[in-house]
């Protein structure tokens, strides 16, 4: 029942986010622009072009990117929590963040080109998870525990590799650029990049939400799930691969944005209940709304932008503490 409300929440957040920004535009400007788009109002062409640039080319990609990234981090966080049956798991559990950070730093060191940095971050995120899974499978078939351990080792490995890159980086411009990337930012995403990344993210998030039923079966135990006809290993690895893919894509678009993937699933669980088939779409919708709202705060409060990662942490931690208090029953 509540799930049906979430799309409306998302829509409202999107509309608010599109109408606020550092360039002073009155609500009448926004309405005027909408009217002009529909051919109801006449705007001077120059004014129309400026409005189109601000609303469609600058704000819209940012809002869309925040929505996609929030949805993918939250959906992958929720599915990781279900697969590992552990409430403290976040999308970084298998080392994807460590790998992406290393990849971005490498891109800054050797190229400095924005697109190269993104591709390198994406690729290294996948490589890091691959290494984690490889380590887990090194001594026979991986259990959930060895997978987590493998991911931790891989994450630590890539974190130390990142430190090494920082050490080698030019302290004048490359090192600050690496630090800057690590804080996360949605400001540089444009429609062209979104066209490349959005379909994959949407398909991935869609696939994860559809896997909810199978994950519900898994939560009853492997044997139960098998008896219900759910392919246990295939589901598990399929979900891990998909969640890794979308979280790696989102990290490559916007850098490190912490806490979303951990906190949002808990809030969703509180609102919707622990059934994965509902929890996953709820997490995706709520995550999208949350990150769009957090980014609107980040880009509006001061003349300088507050790093989005800082905002999600500052907003996320108190929420998480509250949720922990109320959600103890659900996990007991």
């Amino acid at each position, binding site marked *: 029942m509540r799930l049906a409300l979430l799309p409306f929440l998302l829509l409202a957040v999107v509309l608010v986010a599109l109408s606020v*920004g*550092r*360039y*002073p535009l009155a609500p009448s400007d926004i309405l005027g622009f909408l009217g002009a788009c529909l051919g109801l109002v006449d705007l001077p062409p120059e004014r129309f*072009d*400026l409005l189109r*640039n*601000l609303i469609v*080319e*600058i*704000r819209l*990609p940012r809002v869309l990117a925040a929505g996609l990234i929030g949805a993918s981090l939250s959906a992958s966080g929720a599915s990781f929590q279900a697969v590992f049956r552990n409430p403290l798991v976040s999308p970084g559990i298998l080392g994807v963040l460590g790998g992406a950070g290393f990849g971005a730093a490498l891109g*800054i060191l050797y*190229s*400095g*080109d*924005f697109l190269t*940095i993104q591709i390198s971050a994406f690729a290294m995120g996948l490589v890091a998870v691959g290494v984690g899974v490889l380590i887990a499978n090194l001594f026979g078939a991986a259990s959930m525990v060895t997978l987590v351990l493998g991911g931790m080792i891989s994450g630590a490995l890539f974190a130390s590799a990142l430190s090494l890159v*920082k*050490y080698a*980086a*030019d*302290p*004048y*411009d490359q*090192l*600050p*650029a690496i*630090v*800057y*990337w690590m*804080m996360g*930012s949605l*400001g*540089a995403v*444009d*429609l*062209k990049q979104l066209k490349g990344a959005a379909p994959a993210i949407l398909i991935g998030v869609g696939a994860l939400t559809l896997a909810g039923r199978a994950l519900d079966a898994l939560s009853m135990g492997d044997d139960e799930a098998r008896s219900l006809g759910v392919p246990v290993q295939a589901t598990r690895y399929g979900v891990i691969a998909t969640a890794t893919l979308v979280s790696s894509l989102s990290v490559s678009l916007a850098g490190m944005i912490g806490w979303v993937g951990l906190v949002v699933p808990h809030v969703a669980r509180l609102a919707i209940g622990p059934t994965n088939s509902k929890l996953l779409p709820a997490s995706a919708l709520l995550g999208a709304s949350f990150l769009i709202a957090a980014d609107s705060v980040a*880009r509006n409060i001061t*003349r*300088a*932008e*507050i*790093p989005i990662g800082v905002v999600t942490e500052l907003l996320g931690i108190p929420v998480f503490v509250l949720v922990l208090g109320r959600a103890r029953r659900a996990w007991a």
Partner: protein
Amino acid sequence: MPSTRLFARNRFLCALLALLALATAPARAGETREITDMAGRKIVIPADPRRVFGAAPPVAVTLYAIAPERLIGINVPLRGDEKSLYRKEAVDLPVLGSNAGMGRQLNLEEIAAMRPDLVIAWLGFYQEKGQVEASFAKINVPVIFLKLDTLDDYADAFAFLGRVFGREAQANEMAAYIRDALARVRKATADIPPAERLRVYYAESPDGLATDCDKSFHTEPILIAGGDNIYHCEQTSHVGMEKISVEQIVALKPSLILTQNKGFIALAKGSALWRNVEAVKNGRIVDVPHAPFNWLDRPPSYMRALGVQWLANLFYPARFPLDVKAETKKFYRLFLGVDISDADFSRIME
């Protein structure tokens, strides 16, 4: 007896050699003198320092201009692609790190093994004076401090280093160049009313969305050259590079963008995000020359003495006419000890 005569003659020769040595070496190893450094400390240093370590990049880059053959090492590797623009003395120096608090850190034991007789540190940055003194006291090397907060400080720093190394004539020429460049640029731009100053956005990082405040030491050259750095604020961190949104940049209407990142120019020209930024619309995005050292910042250095002239000419060609090529050649010869060709110049400005 022949043997006695030989002995006597040897003694005479030895004495003669000793006298000669005394006469030709104005200051031998072991001789010291007291000086007052730029922090106002009185300190005893070798009369003629031979093995010198600059503990932070801006210091080492300054020493590179005045006493390159005395350096025992550098802080960060030189850029591989610009070998021809470096002094021969510096190309093969070992990379020893710095006390800059980030990137490669120096290893005190390694520094000790290089037997420096003088360490020169950056005053007031990264580390407290006392900490720097204490760390080099452990290896028993005297430390003197250079104050390098503003471009004016660099003129004083050169004059000071001239006395340290006994190279007053060369150092005073450098100091005079900096003072003269500053005076000419300031005179040419002083009477521009605030409203008519060129609005400049300083784009850093590959996405161009990091910048520095107009009152930050990072952007001092823009201010000196009479530009209005659109990002008005007080510097909050040493590293700088504050985040800003495209929308904010559109609203602040910069007429010119200075970028430290070549990739950014292509990005800005090809992206819908930037198309309404005035400077991008008019195609005024300028890459800052950085070979062998950056003309404006990162690291801040005396290169700014050339940088402010280049900027003033770029901002206000009528007020500050400049033969950039001739000035660049003159500057590189005086400070960097290299004669650059026309081809070198085009590559530097590319």
